[in-house]
C-alpha cells in the first residue's frame, strides 16, 4: 500500500507543479492550445491576425466565449492592433527591440494588462474571463483584462432582511462584493488579499481586513488554513467554511456568513476578517462567537433601547426553541406536581385520549413540523405557503381531533418553530433544531434532571469551542476581564457608549470613538448656566 501511495503521491505532486514555458513561435503555442490543452473545448475562441504596416508580426488572442466583454476586445484590442497600429510607422529600432513594449504601452488601449510566464497561468486567467494575447517570437503571454459576463445585479439580501438599513446585498461576483465593502471603508488600511482555492475550480477568495486592527496571528493562521485546503472544488463559501473551521465535528457554526456588505464592513471595523468567495453571495466572517450570531444588522440602526429589548427577546427565543418540547415531555411524564394543579388537571384531561407516552407524541409533532419546514423550503413560494397552511392548520387540527396528540403539544411545537425562526442566523437555528431532539430524548429518559444534564453537556461543548483562537462564548466566559465587550451582547448600549473595540482588536487599538457631544453640542442646560 505504502509503495503505491508513494508512487501515486509523487505522480500527483509532479502533475501539480508542472510549469510549461510558452514556445517562442506563435504557431507552436496555438497548436499546443488547440490540439493538447484545450482540445474539445469548443467554448474557446481563437483569433489570429497580423500587426504592423507590412503585416510582419503575427499575433493571436484567445478567450472564452461568454466570459469576456466582446466590445472591449473588438474596440480596444483588435481595433488598436489591427487598424491604429498601422497608421503610425514606429522607429525601426523600437520595432526591433521592444515590439512588445510598444504594443503594451502604446497600442493596447485597455486599462489593465498583465504578463505571465507559463501556459498554466495563462490558462487560469483565460478561464477567469481574461483574454490571452500571444505574439509571435515573444516568450511571455500578455493578459488583457476583459472580464465581463452576465451576472445578477445587486439585489436585496434574502436571508438577512432588515426594515431599516441598506438594501444592497452581495452577488455572485467577487469583485462586486469587494467593491461593495470598499465603498463603505475609504481607508488605505483596508487590505484585500487574493487567494485561489480548489485545484480544479480555482475559486477566487478575497481576504479583507483592516491592517492595524486585525490580529496578526489570526491573519497568519488564516493564511495557513487557506493554503492547506487541498480539494478539487469550492463551489460555495459553505464548503470552504468546513475546511477552515476549528472543529468540523461540532454542531455549532464557527464561522459566520453574511449576505450584507454593511455587516461585513462592520466586522472589518471591529478587527475581524472577511472572506469574500467568488460565485456565492455569502461571505464568511472570522472569528465568530455565539454572540455575533445573535446580532442582526438592524440592531445598530434602530434605537438602542428597542434593539436591547429585541436582543433579549432573541435570547429568550433560543431558550424556547431549545427547551419547550423537552420541558413538556419532562413535566408531563415525570413531574406533574411542578405545574399548578389546575393546569396539571387540564393537561391530563386533554391528554386522556392520547394513546402514546409524551415522548412519542412530541416526536410525532416535531418530525411533522420538520418535514413541513423542509418541504416548504424546497417548493416555490406559492406552493410553499399552501404547504404551511395545509400542514400547520389542517394536520394540527386533525391530529388533535383524532386524539393522537394533545392540543397543548401542538401549541408547544408551533411556538418552538416560530421561536427558532426568530434567531437571526439560519446556521445557528438549524443546529438548535437538531439539539432540541437530543434534549427531548434526555427529558424522556431522566425528566428535568436529564434536561439539566444535557444543558451541561451543551455548555461544556460551547465552552470548549474556539473560532480562530477566540473562545466561542466570549465575552461571557471572561466577563470580568472583557467587561466592556458586554455592551454589545444581550444588550446593545447606545453607540456613544460603545467606545471600545472588542476582543478581536489588539490592546493598543481598542479606542474607536471620542465623545465630543457634551463640549460641542448646543444643549440647553449649558446655556442657562
Amino acid at each position, binding site marked *: 500500500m505504502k509503495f503505491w501511495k508513494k508512487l501515486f503521491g509523487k505522480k500527483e505532486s509532479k502533475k501539480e507543479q508542472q510549469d510549461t514555458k510558452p514556445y517562442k513561435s506563435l504557431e507552436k503555442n496555438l497548436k499546443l492550445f488547440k490540439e493538447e490543452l484545450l482540445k474539445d473545448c469548443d467554448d474557446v475562441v481563437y483569433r489570429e491576425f497580423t500587426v504592423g504596416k507590412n503585416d510582419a508580426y503575427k499575433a493571436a488572442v484567445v478567450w472564452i466565449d461568454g466570459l469576456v466583454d466582446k466590445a472591449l476586445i473588438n474596440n480596444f484590442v483588435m481595433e488598436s492592433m489591427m487598424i491604429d497600429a498601422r497608421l503610425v510607422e514606429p522607429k525601426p529600432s523600437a520595432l526591433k527591440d521592444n515590439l512588445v513594449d510598444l504594443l503594451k504601452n502604446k497600442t493596447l488601449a485597455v486599462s489593465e494588462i498583465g504578463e505571465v510566464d507559463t501556459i498554466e497561468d495563462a490558462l487560469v486567467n483565460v478561464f477567469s474571463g481574461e483574454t490571452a494575447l500571444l505574439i509571435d517570437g515573444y516568450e511571455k503571454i500578455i493578459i488583457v483584462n476583459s472580464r465581463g459576463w452576465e451576472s445578477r445585479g445587486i439585489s436585496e439580501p434574502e436571508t438577512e432582511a432588515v426594515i431599516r438599513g441598506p438594501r444592497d446585498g452581495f452577488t455572485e461576483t467577487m469583485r462586486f462584493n469587494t467593491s461593495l465593502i470598499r465603498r463603505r471603508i475609504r481607508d488605505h488600511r483596508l487590505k484585500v488579499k487574493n487567494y485561489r482555492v480548489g485545484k480544479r475550480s480555482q475559486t477566487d477568495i478575497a481576504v479583507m481586513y483592516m491592517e492595524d486592527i486585525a490580529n496578526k496571528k489570526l491573519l497568519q*493562521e488564516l493564511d495557513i488554513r487557506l493554503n492547506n485546503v487541498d480539494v478539487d472544488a469550492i463551489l460555495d463559501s459553505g464548503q470552504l467554511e468546513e475546511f477552515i473551521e476549528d472543529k468540523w465535528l461540532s454542531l455549532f457554526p464557527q464561522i459566520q456568513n453574511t449576505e450584507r456588505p454593511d455587516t461585513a464592513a462592520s466586522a472589518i471595523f471591529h478587527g475581524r476578517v472577511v472572506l469574500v468567495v467568488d460565485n456565492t453571495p455569502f461571505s464568511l466572517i472570522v472569528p465568530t462567537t455565539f454572540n455575533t450570531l445573535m446580532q442582526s444588522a438592524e440592531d445598530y440602526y434602530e434605537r438602542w433601547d428597542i434593539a436591547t429589548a429585541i436582543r433579549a427577546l432573541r435570547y429568550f427565543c433560543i431558550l424556547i426553541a431549545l427547551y419547550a418540547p423537552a420541558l413538556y415531555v419532562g413535566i408531563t411524564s415525570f413531574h406533574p406536581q*411542578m405545574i399548578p394543579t389546575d393546569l396539571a388537571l387540564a393537561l391530563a384531561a386533554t391528554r386522556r385520549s392520547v394513546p402514546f407516552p409524551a415522548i412519542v407524541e412530541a416526536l410525532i409533532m416535531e418530525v411533522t413540523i420538520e418535514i413541513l419546514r423542509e418541504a416548504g423550503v424546497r417548493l416555490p413560494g406559492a406552493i410553499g405557503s399552501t404547504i404551511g397552511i395545509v400542514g400547520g392548520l389542517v394536520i394540527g387540527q386533525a391530529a388533535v381531533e383524532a386524539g393522537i396528540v394533545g392540543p397543548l403539544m401542538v401549541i408547544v411545537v408551533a411556538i418552538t418553530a416560530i421561536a427558532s425562526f426568530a434567531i437571526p442566523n439560519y446556521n445557528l437555528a438549524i443546529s438548535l433544531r437538531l439539539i432540541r431532539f437530543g434534549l427531548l430524548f434526555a427529558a424522556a429518559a431522566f425528566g428535568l434532571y436529564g434536561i439539566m444534564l444535557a444543558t451541561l453537556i451543551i455548555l461544556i461543548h460551547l465552552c470548549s469551542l474556539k473560532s480562530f483562537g477566540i473562545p466561542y462564548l466570549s465575552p461571557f466566559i*471572561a466577563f470580568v476581564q472583557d467587561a466592556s465587550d458586554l455592551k454589545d451582547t444581550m444588550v446593545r448600549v447606545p453607540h456613544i457608549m460603545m467606545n471600545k473595540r472588542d476582543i478581536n482588536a489588539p490592546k493598543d487599538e481598542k479606542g474607536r470613538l471620542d465623545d465630543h457631544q457634551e463640549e460641542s453640542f448646543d444643549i440647553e442646560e449649558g446655556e442657562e448656566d
Partner: protein
Amino acid sequence: MFPNNDKVTVSQMVTISILTMVGIGILTLPRELIGEAGTDGWMVLILGGLGAIAVSFTHGYIIKSFPGKSYFEILSITLTKPIAYILGLYTIIYLLGIMSYVVRTFGMTVKEFLLPETPPEFVILPILLVSAYLVRKGIEVLGRMAEIIIVPLSAVIVILFFLSWRNAEVSNLLPVFQTPSLQIIKAVPFALFSFLGFEVLLVFGGFMDKPKKATRVGPIAIFFVLLLYQLLNASVLTVLGSHQTERLIWPLLATFRTIELPGAFIENVEIFVMAVWVFTVFMTMVPLYLGGCLLMMELAGGKDHSYYSLLPLPFIAVLSVWDDSIADVYESLGKFSDYTAYGVVLLVPLGILIALLVRKRKKNEDRTA
C-alpha cells in the same frame, strides 16, 4: 497559532473556588451551625471565614512563590520527591473522596425531589459521565464554565432567597450574643470546614495566567461565599426557626419548598431550586475530579490528563453508594474529612511553607557567605 494554552484568569479561578466551596456545605450548613452555636451561628461563620481567608492566603502565597509550577512539582521541590508521591496520593484520595460524598448527597436530593423511583446508581452515573466529559476538556474549559454559570446561578439563588422571605419571622434570629465565647471558638474549626473547597487553588494555581495575584483568589472567593452563607443562614433561620431547622436533614431545600407563588404560572419553584442545585453540585464535583486527575497524571508521569478522566470513575461510583442511609453518609463524611482535610488544607501547606522559608533563608545565607 493559538495553542490550547490551558490558562485561567484570576476571575475564573475565583469563580471556580466559589463554586467548589458552595456545593459541599450549603445543604446542611444552617442545621450544623445551630447545633454548634444556636442563633449565634453568624459569629461562628465570620470567624470561620476569617480563618479560611488566612489559610487560603498561605495557599496563594505558595502558588505565588512558584509561578507556573504544578502542585506536585511544588511538593517535590520543597519536600523531596518520595514525600511528594505520598502527599500527592493523599491529596488525590482527599479530592476524590470528598467528591464521592458530594455525589452521594446529590444523588439523594435528586431522588427525593426529582426522580423518586429511579435507583440512585442511575442518578449518579450520568452526572459522573458528564463531569468526566468536562474533566477531559481541562482547566481552561472549566474556568469558562465557572464564569459563565456563576452569574445566572447567583441571580437565581438571590431571587429564591427574596421569595422565601415572604414567610420570614425576623425575631427567629434572636437571641444574639447568648452563646459562651468558648463554645463559639470551639465551633470555629467546624465553620472553617464549611468553606472547604478553596484548596483547589493549590492544585490549579499552576495554570493561572497571573500567578502573582494568586493570594487574592482565596480571600475574594471566601468573602463572597461568606456573604452567601450569611444570607443562607439568616434566611433559613427566619423562615424555619431554630428548632425546626435543627431537625431537618436539608433545611435549605425545606426553606425553598415553602416558597409559593399563588396565581403565577409556576406555583412552586422546585424546578429552579433543582436546576440551581444540579449546576452547583456539578461545578463542585468537577474541580475536585479534575484536580484528582491532574495529580494522577503527574504521579503516573503522563502528559495528557484526559486519559485519566475515566479511570477513577468506578471508584467514585462505588464509594458514593457505599453508605446505606443519609445519616451514615454524614457520619462517614465527618470521619473522612477529619482524617484528610486537616492534612491537605492545613498541614501539607504548612510543611511547604516551612520548607520554603528554610530554602529562602539558605539562599540568603549562601548569598551573604
